């Protein structure tokens, strides 16, 4: 049953549609969106960005602190290991030193009652070594051919001394026997055998020194 209305104004009131109140909801939504986009999100983002930057800096600072600690620890160790470092320096020198090698080989021959007849040093080159060490290209090898005269036992003694020497001599090839003493017209008084060894000695080309 249709409601009877007394006046035109009352009819107008009752005919007002609900949809017209959406205006407020829409404007609220727009305002909230504007606040979010232009105020809240930039404010939060500026903080989160800064926190991220701080985290990066904090990590870097931690790495620096750790590095400083490690370096200081190693410096203490270095201080306590001077004798071992000196030993390393003599065993794997930082520069090519043929005179040092010659003197040592001569001394080894003398101690084993042999005689160092000749030592021929070659050109140095980068050592081909399978290693994870970053600066392995600084390891240089110097080829060296030595002739040592003696007899079979004394040459054996010389070999032992040479291979026990802290400096790692690497033997490439060996020729020994009684044949070459005569063929090379060497004085027999020094022994009837000759040892010819092709060896390499090594040095570490240290750029920090």
């Amino acid at each position: 049953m249709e409601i009877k209305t007394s006046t035109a104004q009352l009819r107008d009131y009752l005919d007002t549609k609900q949809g017209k109140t959406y205006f407020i909801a829409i404007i609220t939504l727009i305002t909230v969106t504007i606040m979010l986009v232009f105020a809240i999100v930039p404010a939060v983002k500026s903080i989160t960005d800064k926190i991220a930057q701080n985290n990066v800096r904090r990590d870097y600072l931690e790495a620096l602190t750790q590095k400083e600690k490690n370096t200081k620890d190693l410096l203490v160790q270095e201080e306590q290991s001077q004798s071992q470092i000196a030993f390393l320096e003599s065993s794997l020198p930082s520069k090519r030193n043929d005179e040092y090698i010659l003197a040592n080989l001569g001394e080894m021959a003398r101690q084993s009652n042999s005689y160092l007849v000749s030592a021929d040093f070659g050109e140095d080159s980068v050592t081909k070594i399978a290693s994870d060490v970053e600066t392995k290209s600084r390891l240089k090898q110097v080829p060296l051919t030595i002739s040592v005269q003696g007899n079979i036992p004394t040459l054996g003694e010389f070999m032992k001394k040479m291979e026990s020497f802290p400096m790692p001599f690497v033997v490439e090839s060996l020729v020994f026997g009684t044949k070459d003493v005569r063929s090379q017209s060497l004085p027999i008084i020094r022994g009837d055998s000759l040892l010819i060894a092709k060896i390499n000695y090594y040095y570490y080309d240290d750029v920090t020194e």
Partner: protein
Amino acid sequence: MVQKKGFNLLKTQVEPQTMWTKLYRWTTTTARAIMVFVELIIVVAFGFRVVVDLQFKNLNKDIASKEEIMSVLQESEMRLRSTQDRIGLYEQLWKDTPYYSNVYLEITKIVPVNVQELSVQILNNEVTIKGFADAQAIEDIESGFKNSSLFTKTELLNIESQGTDTDSFTIKTNLNNLPMRSEVLF
């Protein structure tokens, strides 16, 4: 005179608000609440920002200080790295170097001293022995190499009569399980 009284049974109708009235009411209620809420967030955010800015400043200060220390330690660091690398390479050289002294001693044990014009060559794990000796000595040398654990694939390549008591011979053998220097020494 008696006044007539009547009852209005209809629900009271309010005059519909105009758009401007609605807007005014919204501005003074919902919009105000939104603004207060947003301002609160902004104030809290500002406080946070001040704190993180201070942290940023302090971190930068600490980093600059550490970098200065590290620049002083840089030379030492390079020296230490160099020493570490050198130790690594030295160890590897020492470990991976074959040890020939035992081979030499073994050969001199097998080959008798009366072999003339003896020449022993060791190259690429191959050993060649040449010289002059009597037939029995040559046979002993060959069996000596064959019975030694340091050698393998031993063969008498050549034996030639010289018209005297001694024959020239060539024996070839290969090194077997050549020890590394670190295995023998330490």
